[in-house]
């Protein structure tokens, strides 16, 4: 690594289904202001801007052009990366690399989505190949319904298993003022009253469409030492993709998640992920995906995540806190979602997560992004520089 990069400020809006009171630029400005305030710096201190969102959503084209007027990018360098659901994760990677390269000392990464302003389902349907699968695609919902059926079949987990995940995430979201869905769910039975989208996937199993923005400020080691907050060090990061699922013929695979975690943990000497990693904010668009992917990352043995969930081990105040923010199932402004994972881990490692602060001592955190045709971006953040 040429030089170290640290997260020195985070900001996110209070995510909602609709924010008719702000336009796209304004919602980004909110997040930028929160981040600048958090870091104790002004917009003048930012050297470059890294932005992204779902490229085609909101019916927008070249969105960073209009956005520049709002986030302080006019007259300054910047780049736009658009990698679908993993956008927020990629924004963090690019921010880390830009600082590590030595070209810029302080950069801000801004991700957002204003999903009510577009047709999210239409936007996701156009992921499908226009000539081969677009006619029948049920988009993300179809994918996750199939995933749920697959997990249940492979592991023998009962239908309640998904609902237990939902309960944990709701409990966490109630402690997170930024979360979109903050539901007072009391029991598994209550969750299972939620209507089916495509069985066994229920409405409550699936992430919402949210409007929100998130910004993180990343600085070099030298600059970080002069900022208001304790720096959170970017230890390592990785991106793994799979070929287009629409050409792969519907075969279910979590090879990207497995490979990303194996490589990232392997090259960082992490042998017992659940013991060595203190908190995980994983990007899981559905409750069932959260279970399967905790296994795929290697946090629990195959087929056992649902049993650990039943025992409550993933609660924020327990052995291995997963998504203390409430996760993607509680909040999903797609272009910001993955960046929120990084921001949440940073808050946890700083001890600044308020009511949702994990009880376990936070030294090493793991954040992931998911999207595309089965893509994974993962980061390791550390409270210490080593």
């Amino acid at each position, binding site marked *: 690594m040429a030089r170290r990069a640290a997260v020195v400020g985070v900001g996110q809006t209070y995510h909602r289904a609709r924010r008719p009171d702000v336009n796209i630029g304004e919602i980004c400005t909110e997040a930028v202001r929160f981040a600048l305030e958090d870091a104790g710096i002004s917009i003048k201190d930012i050297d470059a801007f890294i932005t992204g969102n*779902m490229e085609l959503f909101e019916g927008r084209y070249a969105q960073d*052009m209009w956005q520049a007027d709002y986030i302080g990018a006019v007259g300054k360098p910047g780049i736009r*990366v*658009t990698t679908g659901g993993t956008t927020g994760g990629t924004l963090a990677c690019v921010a*880390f690399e830009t600082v590590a*390269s030595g070209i810029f000392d302080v950069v801000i990464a801004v991700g957002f989505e204003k999903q009510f302003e577009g047709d999210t389902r239409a936007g996701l349907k156009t992921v499908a190949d*226009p000539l081969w699968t677009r006619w029948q695609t049920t988009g993300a919902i179809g994918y996750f319904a199939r995933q749920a059926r697959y997990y249940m079949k492979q592991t023998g987990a009962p239908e309640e298993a998904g609902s237990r995940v939902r309960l944990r995430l709701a409990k966490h979201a109630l402690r997170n003022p930024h979360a979109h869905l903050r539901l007072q769910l009391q029991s598994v039975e209550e969750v299972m009253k939620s209507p089916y989208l495509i069985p066994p996937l229920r409405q409550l199993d699936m992430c919402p469409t949210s409007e929100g923005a998130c910004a993180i400020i990343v600085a070099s080691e030298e600059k970080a030492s002069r900022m208001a907050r304790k720096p959170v060090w970017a230890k390592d990061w990785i991106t793994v993709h799979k070929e287009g699922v629409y050409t792969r013929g519907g075969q279910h695979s979590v090879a990207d998640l497995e490979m990303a975690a194996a490589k990232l943990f392997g090259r960082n000497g992490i042998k017992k992920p659940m013991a060595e990693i203190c908190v995980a904010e994983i990007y899981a668009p559905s409750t069932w995906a959260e279970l399967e992917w905790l296994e795929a990352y290697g946090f629990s043995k195959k087929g056992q995540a649902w049993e650990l969930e039943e025992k409550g081990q993933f609660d924020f105040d327990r052995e291995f806190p997963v998504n203390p923010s409430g996760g993607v199932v509680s909040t999903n402004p797609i272009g910001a979602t993955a960046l929120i994972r990084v921001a949440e881990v940073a808050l946890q490692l700083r001890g600044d997560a308020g009511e949702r602060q994990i009880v376990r001592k936070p030294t090493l955190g793991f954040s992931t992004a998911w999207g595309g045709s089965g893509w994974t971006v993962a980061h390791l953040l550390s409270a210490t520089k080593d």
Partner: protein
Amino acid sequence: MKVGIVAAAQSPFREYPEWRPQELTYLVVEEVLKKTGLPFREGYDDIITCSSDHWDGKTLSDIEHGEMAGAHLGPGEEKVGMDGANAVLLGYIKVLSGHADVVLVTAACKERDVLDPCVIENFGFDVTYQQLIGLDFTQAAALQAMSFMHKYGLKREDFAEVVVQMRRNGQANPHLFSQQEVSLNEVLGSEMLAYPISSLDKKAPCDGACAMILAKEERAKELTEQPVWIKGIGSCYDAHNLGDRDLADPEALFRAAKDAYRMAAIKDPKKEIDFFEISEHYSYQLLLWMEGLGLCERGESAKLLHSGKIGKEGGMPVNPSGGLLGGVPRYVAGANRVIEAFGRLQEKAKEGAGIKEPRVALAHGAYGPAGQHHCVIILERGF
């Protein structure tokens, strides 16, 4: 640490009814991997793609382009949603950061698949004011051209002369959509789109793809005898609201170039850079961007154009490749500028090219309405 370009490949730019956009990406990636002998997937650590969801007509267009570039369970892929020069810039940053040793950069676009490009461009403007008056990029360019004309007393003939010179240069470039020369009168007589921009003043739409390999110094020297180092980069946003800018003042380009020159330790680009490959999506832009890059004083670009100095045989060649006007697809455009500069630097002194032993070149990409965003890359041959 030095980062170099070691190989590049481009498809001819034309209409491709026989291939899908991702297949065009595959063809250039196959070619560039053959040139370096690098195996797919293991040979590089990262892939940066450049494509447009809007022009491909699908969300996450990089699913296909990434797959064709070898992303499957391998190096992973990231998409730059801007002009291709920015993809090269990101590739450079990746290697410089130490996170990757070798990076594959691709760009692809099939402009001719889209029947309503003006609609897409219109949606690139802010929702509240500019979109609703029906602006598209050609109209924004026309506004900029008019500002430019009024500020310095330029004429349509000056812009038409740009087209004549670019098309003349382009005759020797087999990649361009058209290698045909055009006369001043043909340009002036071509269909008016938005005054003063007529159809020959505008880059021809076409399909195509390109790819290149970037590597850190040790690897670059293993992969080629003729690496071309990236010495400086710069990028800059201008204001989006056209009325907030003096459209005839290319301040964003000036700042991007300034950063690139500083990084490359260049004090006088006119003397220290041997040739320039810049992105003129419209004819007037060649003049305006030359001013932004500091190749002449503000308002003097027409004089520079007419002096012949920027011709292939002149003292300061600009777009010896023929630039974009002859037809290079958008998104590919900025990356194409880099590849043209790279190619000419690699070839050293070329018979009849009129450029003796070029050592340093500048490549430039522009994106957004009326060049709202600019990206500048300085290249230096290392052999």
